[in-house]
């Protein structure tokens, strides 16, 4: 998957520059509610419940201050990704136990063939320390787009 393709899944209305919630559950709830208010899902509680159950299998905090809560659901028409920042960071029970500041919520329909490829590519991008550092300074979706499109 090319960088431009990866970027095509991100949209301005699916960016939260600063999350209000300060707990793991609160973050999931706030992000799911954002999906409902931006009309990407009909009912936020369906996504929230599913993500909670997924977290029950093991945290999706991949370490280095990043979490990728993800699930498949018929509640979405196509793959959606919601990018959010919590600049203070919160305990998300990550593998390295470090507070999480960057959240990428990924929800895809059950038979979406790009879902796993997208997750893989996203992880690849987020393992770069420089990029992560720069992502934390982002204040607008435009800045995010510019940063990702510059990555080789």
């Amino acid at each position, binding site marked *: 998957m090319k960088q431009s393709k990866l970027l095509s899944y991100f949209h301005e209305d699916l960016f939260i520059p600063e999350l209000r919630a300060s707990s793991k559950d609160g973050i999931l709830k706030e992000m799911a509610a954002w999906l409902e208010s931006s009309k990407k899902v*009909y009912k936020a509680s369906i996504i929230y*419940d*599913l993500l909670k*159950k*997924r977290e*029950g299998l093991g945290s999706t905090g991949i370490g280095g201050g990043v979490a990728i809560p993800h699930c498949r*659901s*018929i*509640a979405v028409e196509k793959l959606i990704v919601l990018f959010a920042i919590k600049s203070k960071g919160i305990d998300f029970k990550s593998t390295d136990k470090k507070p999480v500041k960057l959240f990428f919520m990924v929800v895809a329909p059950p038979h979406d063939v790009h879902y796993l490829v997208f997750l893989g590519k996203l*992880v690849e991008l987020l393992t770069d320390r420089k990029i992560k550092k720069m992502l934390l300074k982002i204040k607008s979706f435009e800045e995010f787009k510019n940063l990702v499109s510059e990555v080789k």
Partner: protein
Amino acid sequence: MNKILQKLVMLQDLDYMIVEVKSKDVKIVQKKMGLKIKGDEKLHDARNALEQTIPPKVLSKYYKLMERFGRAVAPVVDNKCMGCYVTLPKRLAIRELGNRELRNCERCGMFLYWV
């Protein structure tokens, strides 16, 4: 939104999740992410508990549809059933209206969920 419909959507999503966590492709990606998936007993418990709250007649239809099509709830997009692609009656074009009641597609019989 109709409560039974919401439960059916959850049940089907959980059934898919149970299958998915066992798949090789998912395990490869999870490994790449540095994540470990613990046993799926909790998922089974959750779906079984949810199942208990669904009326037996509805549940029986759910299983019949799952057996026949591999899914029981079909999303509705642009007023089309994504199970068989039939166009639904115009009066159901608004999702708030569609999701208010538990409905089945007149053609394929799947439960309909307006996304």
